[in-house]
């Protein structure tokens, strides 16, 4: 198939970027989307021009490193699918595909489609953990947890940290990402001791990083490749309010 591409090209963080057009002939519909970009890059390299930089690593949908806006949708048109799991058969012959980086002021563009998501690391550093040192743990079965409770915690823990939720949000809010970690740990007995300091610190850090507020459009859940539910945001708000009321 023939594919017409418009791709955001930006030399570095400081210089302005622009959309550039490329055409690829003979694209195999079984190719993955990133393999299509590999093919484009091979062609650019043959022409002596700089290939398109994009983030990717595992290419099996679990590492969270890939992520671009494809025709205005985070990770492209399919539901619950990361960019690396998208295939060219989803597109039609001679279709124009517009490719841009995830955009948010907390995610500065570094080069072309590559962005800086280190803000997420700092949100986790502020409290996204259970404070247990190596060696302190009690016997695993001494903390019984009901199967439904642990499955609910898992639903939140499944987040891959790709940032699609931020990219798709009109406020660039990281509420889904942050709340998923808060919910994961708050739903487990091990995580409850620090629940109040955790939620306060993580919410403050999220604000400090320049992410916007949540205005409940729920677009994040629609675009999340891991189907993380917006109900975690409600839990985060509940935990936050509880922590503020009980604050000593």
């Amino acid at each position: 198939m023939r594919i017409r591409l418009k791709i955001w090209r930006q030399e570095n963080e400081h210089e302005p970027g622009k959309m550039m057009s490329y055409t690829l002939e003979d694209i195999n519909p079984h190719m993955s989307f990133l393999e299509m970009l590999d093919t484009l890059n091979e062609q650019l390299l043959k022409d002596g021009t700089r290939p398109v930089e994009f983030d990717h690593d595992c290419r099996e949908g679990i590492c969270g490193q890939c992520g671009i806006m494809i025709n205005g949708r985070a990770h492209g048109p399919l539901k619950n699918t990361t960019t690396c799991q998208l295939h060219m058969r989803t597109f039609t012959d001679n279709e124009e595909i517009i490719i841009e980086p995830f955009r948010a002021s907390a995610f500065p563009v570094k080069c072309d489609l590559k962005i800086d998501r280190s803000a997420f690391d700092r949100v986790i550093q502020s409290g996204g953990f259970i404070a247990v040192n190596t060696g302190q743990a009690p016997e695993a079965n001494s903390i019984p947890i009901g199967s439904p409770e642990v499955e609910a915690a898992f639903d939140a823990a499944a987040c891959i940290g790709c940032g699609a939720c931020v990219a798709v949000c009109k406020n660039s809010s990281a509420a889904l990402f942050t709340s998923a970690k808060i919910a994961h740990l708050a739903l487990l007995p091990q995580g409850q001791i620090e629940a109040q300091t955790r939620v306060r610190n993580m919410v403050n850090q999220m604000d400090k990083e320049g992410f916007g507020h949540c205005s409940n459009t729920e677009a994040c859940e629609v675009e999340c490749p891991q189907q993380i539910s917006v109900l975690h945001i409600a839990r985060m708000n509940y935990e936050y309010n509880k922590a503020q009321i009980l604050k000593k």
Partner: protein
Amino acid sequence: MLDAKIPAGPLEEKWNYYKTHAKLVNPANRRKLDVIVVGAGLAGSSIAASLGEMGYNVKCFCFQDTPRRAHSVAAQGGVNACKNYKNDGDSVYRMFYDTIKGGDFRAREGNVYRLAACSASLIDQAVAQGVPFGREYGGYLNNRSFGGVQVSRTFYARGQTGQQLLQGAYQALMRQVGAGNVQLFARHEMLDLVVIEKKARGIIVRNMDTGALERHGAHAVVLATGGFGKIYYLSTLAMGCNGSAIWRAHKRGAFMANPSWTQIHPTSLPQSGEYQSKLTLMSESLRNDGRIWVPVNKDEQREPNQIPEEERDYYLERRYPAFGNLSPRDIASRAAKERIDAGFGIGPLKNAVYLDFSRAIKDQGEDKIRKKYGNLFRMYEKITGVNAYLEPMRISPAAHFSMGGLWVDYELMTTIPGLFALGEANFADHGANRLGANSLLQASIDGYFIAPYTMANYLADEIKAGPIDVRHAAFAAAEENVQQQLHLLMGIQGNLSADHFHKALGKILYDKCGLSRSKDGLEKAISDIVALREEFWQRLYVPGGYAINSELEKAGRVADYLELGELMCYDALTRNESCGAHFRTEYQTPEGEAMRNDQDFSFISAWEWTGAGKSPLLHKEPLHFEFVTPTVRSYK
């Protein structure tokens, strides 16, 4: 002579003896000691976090944009641990025996026993961190059986055990970063090791965003950089996985052990075209209900469902009636290759075999199959566009795990004092074939429970060393060395991409140093790799500059692969026997089974770098079996 430093005494007392006699560093002195950790997957994050908690000054480096991306994240099935929660007769000894037998008796008894003995603590640690392992309705932890062992000792978090264990370690690491005990350097790649007076004293890294080279000094350096299966280009590994850190350490004096032992996983999705970058793994559990076959006729044109039962060759059931479709990974992969090479492969490239669920669906009903494997069938459809409830899956073998790696002693220290290797980057515990669900285990145990003790034993003698001065001539020389290589790569200005050479190397290795090897093939592979390497240094093209440049990153990695690949072939060539993943066609029984030679090859091959263009030097570490007797692995 290589000394593995395994403590004498009964098997079950070795590690306790070591721990109670190892030197300690008192908390006030830990602040005076700097440690570098390269790699932030399960092994790297767990050692960096543990050392940070203890009060050492830690710097942790990774090439990804955050440690949570490391490829430990992709492990699906589970993690083995001997808890005996099922009351089904598991014990540390049984787990030890299963692992050493699975490795075809090519691992050290002392190391493997320690792995099994420490396994239970990992589950405790992970649960305390909040890892949501599968539970029973009473609230207690569940396990399943995995990889053909007779007990249930595999703990799992849905099909994402690696992701959840990594998050536990990542969160522990982030906590230490937040507390200021660990400095994190994401998007940094290690390009050289600095050795001063025979001790590892630091590294040279490149900031992949700015292109700047940096010097970092420390009293000990840990390499936890994972496996190098990506050398085959098409593999189940992530695109960025590489062997550069361990290879550059090798060129500074660290020996490489058993580098040719690569596990080729039997149930991956086949290559569908030249453009392909990655082979996705389908969980091995599918073989519990799927039947593997190829057509009896070589030039079969019909769709699989049109081929009648009597014209199908269920070759695993035919060759291994006792284990059939559940034969171990090395056996199943080799049998598939045998059929594909003989011309019976299926699919447009004739490079796959069928994995058929029609009988299971008929016997058990589609609902039951959906319940067991629904997510895998969905994943298969997502990638291939084919509904596997209606027609068989196509699968083929893919390079997966490096059993080989840097040679380490019982303390996980390489042949360079002060340089440690953890997780898949070392060679230590899996012998010639790794058992399923043991990789997450080994990475975690190395980082949480072994290296904190053995590194303290080394660091105790470094307290008086004082801060490491990065203005030392050895740092300058190493930085110069890196700078020169980068200039060389950028300066070739040929017309072929790094991927071009990587694919060509992968093809050579798959053909001649993959599932089966022969003397002639390996000799040919060595000369082919040498020729390819020469072409690389003449015709490579790296566009762009020194700041963010994926092509430059790839070029450096492929340059290392082109040397490592040659060493793999030497390693396979000198081992005149078949064991585990290493199958030499000259050494097989008349029925085509592997023939191990304990008389002559019961040793670990440890290779020394002797210089560019020179043959590597082989050192042998003999394996002593005091507690078990090596037997023939039979799955007939």
